[in-house]
């Protein structure tokens, strides 16, 4: 007999898509970012439900998944975009799942008639995957009415609308400037369904990020260095040009340089342990501690 009310196992669909392990790695490797992770879960659930609906013959246009990532520098926008490409690929929303990361330079030309081919070229490359436009607000320069950025925006809009099942566009940038950008380009704002805000990291989260980075590089902190790093993070956060995880990565890179120098200065053979350990002095030598 024909079943008038068939059922679909959503969990099975989710497992089938192998999307859970991407979300788990996201949880494991990205510290904090709770609202972002929640949003990604929502989107994954939404796509699974759309798939289930389609399998039962319920109508539904493919959902629009263009997104905007706003947040301060170093809050993980690019990293999440790469993962997003993978998640969308596993859920069958994009065919290839690669990420094409561009900025204004890659889209906007230098003379009349140069912009359209350039933008189209990038769009063609991104088809089947995700186009990530970093610092997207630079596309729109209201102070120069002959700026070619507007042309790039118009082509983008057209493709975002007509080729919705060929690519997903993710715009990224600082919150306030992106807000201005969307206000002056209502067409863009209305075509982007998901606005995701990346919060700044807390001190504890930044420390955790540092620990993760060091562990990946086979380094570790001795007790003094751990305290110094915590202190460093607290001080660095209050200083200008703080770029969250990026500042931490740079600080660790410099600490590694100093460690190498220190090991050389001893002039003796070094142990495996010594090669791995970052000491307090390596971190305390930073200009952050010299009040500068």
């Amino acid at each position, binding site marked *: 007999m024909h079943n008038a009310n068939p059922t679909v196992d959503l969990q099975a669909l989710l497992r089938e898509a192998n999307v859970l392990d991407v979300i788990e790695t996201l949880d494991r490797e990205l510290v904090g970012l709770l609202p972002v992770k929640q949003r990604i879960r929502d989107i994954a659930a939404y796509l699974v439900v759309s798939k289930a609906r389609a399998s039962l013959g319920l109508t539904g246009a493919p959902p629009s998944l263009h997104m905007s990532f706003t947040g301060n520098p170093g809050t993980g926008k690019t990293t999440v975009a790469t993962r997003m490409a993978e998640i969308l690929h596993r859920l069958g929303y994009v065919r290839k799942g690669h990420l094409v990361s561009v900025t204004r330079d890659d889209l906007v030309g230098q003379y009349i008639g140069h912009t359209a081919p350039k933008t189209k070229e990038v769009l*063609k*490359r991104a*088809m*089947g995957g995700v186009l990530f436009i970093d610092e997207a607000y630079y596309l729109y320069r209201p102070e120069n009415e002959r700026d070619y950025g507007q042309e790039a925006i118009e082509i983008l809009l057209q493709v975002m609308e007509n080729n919705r099942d060929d690519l997903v566009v993710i715009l990224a940038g600082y919150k306030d400037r992106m807000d201005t950008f969307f206000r002056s380009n209502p067409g863009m704002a209305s075509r982007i369904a998901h606005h995701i805000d990346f919060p700044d990291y807390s001190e504890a989260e930044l420390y955790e990020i540092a620990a993760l980075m060091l562990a990946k590089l086979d380094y570790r902190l001795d007790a003094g260095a751990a305290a110094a790093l915590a202190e460093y993070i607290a001080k660095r956060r209050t200083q200008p040009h703080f770029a969250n995880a990026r500042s931490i990565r740079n600080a660790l890179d410099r600490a590694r340089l100093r460690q190498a120098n220190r090991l050389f200065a001893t002039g003796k053979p070094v142990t495996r342990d010594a090669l791995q350990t970052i000491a307090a002095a390596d971190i305390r030598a930073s200009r952050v501690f010299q009040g500068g």
Partner: protein
Amino acid sequence: MRITQGTFSFLPDLTDAEIALQIEYALKNGWAVAVEHTDEPHPRNVYWEMWGMPMFDLKDAAGALLEVNACRKAFPSDYIKVNAFDSTQGWESTRLSFIVNRPKNEPGFRVVRQESAGRSIRYTVESYAVDRPEGSRY
């Protein structure tokens, strides 16, 4: 007379979905896809007009299909073909080439006999279409 040049030319015209699958195959092999068009159907005419640059770092057929359709829109009654170029050493040439658009009416070819020295005759073929100037042949 239907022109048969390149791959698949003895088959019925490919649909867009079939063209996309062929392009997908080319991309999977790492070949660069290019679109060319002409209104000079002579089989020895190898210099077709390029429709834009060959598309080198394409990942998906949708991008190439976009160009095919743009070319069709601009030259609805030209011959349009898709070429797939293999740049690996030792090949460095076109590996796949097929027609994706042709004029509605293809008038075919006539034999032209040229009398030359002595009583000898040189034979050649010429399309009826080329009687009219370039751009207004079909």
